[in-house]
């Protein structure tokens, strides 16, 4: 994203650059440390299994942070995340290949762009889905 002409060139249905992530158990520990979410289902395999899960699972909020990274990689210095709304539809696991996607769903007056966003794993399962609204500077 560079300038006003970029904004004008954005069309409904455009897909923004995707972001691929490979969360590891080490990353989950790092996220637990910085986010304060020490739910044992994210680092203790025995605990997770005892709670009916297949194993340790990726924090939902970390997946959301991946979506935020994808969005900020796209708008760069030229925008601001106004709103993000996501639902956690499935579980992500360490070692998964997660791909974040964003598709422009609406252009709104004032430089606002609404996007459908999702996280998809290597099995094609949409584990996080939602919408985002980005304000692009220069669109006023």
């Amino acid at each position, binding site marked *: 994203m560079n300038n006003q002409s970029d904004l004008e060139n954005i069309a409904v249905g455009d897909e923004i650059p995707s972001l691929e992530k490979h969360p590891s158990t080490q990353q989950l520990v790092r996220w637990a440390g910085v986010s*304060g979410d020490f739910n044992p289902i994210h680092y203790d395999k025995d605990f997770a299994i005892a709670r009916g899960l297949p194993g340790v699972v990726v924090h939902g909020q970390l997946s959301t942070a991946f979506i935020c990274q994808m969005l900020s990689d796209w708008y760069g210095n030229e925008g601001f995340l106004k709103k993000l709304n996501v639902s956690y539809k499935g579980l992500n696991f360490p070692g998964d290949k997660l791909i974040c996607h964003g598709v422009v769903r609406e252009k709104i007056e004032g430089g606002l762009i609404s996007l459908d966003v999702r996280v998809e794993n290597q099995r094609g399962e949409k584990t996080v889905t939602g919408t985002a609204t980005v304000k692009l500077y220069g669109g006023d």
Partner: protein
Amino acid sequence: MIQQLKIDDLKGLVGQPWLTLTYPIEACLIRRFVEAVGDDTPILPGKKAEVPPALLLTIGFERVISMLLGLPEAVLHGSTELECFEPVRIGDLLTVTARVAALRERAPLTFINLELEQHNQKGVLIGRCKQLAILRGKA
């Protein structure tokens, strides 16, 4: 010391102010945050040096989740809604107010809607984060 809760305690908190917390936004926090996300290009060198918006997902939530994890039920995350009103910058001091917006039970699940608002040192509302926590009782 984290206060230990029971679900009945949470029922009594619905609609009431629950927690007020303050967080200085320091460079080392942002460095640890972006390392945890694996973001190689986090703080943009442009006009504002804003911190990543995803930081607001965590500010205040760490205390809330710590308290929920004291419950015997398993805690799962249903959804997240984040609204950003103003950029956050290193050096800001954020005050977070958390409340239980709603609680409903559908055995064996309990759905808890949490709402956290973040104000900066000027008293400006900079973010609002709504979280749906799902508690699942032991089968």
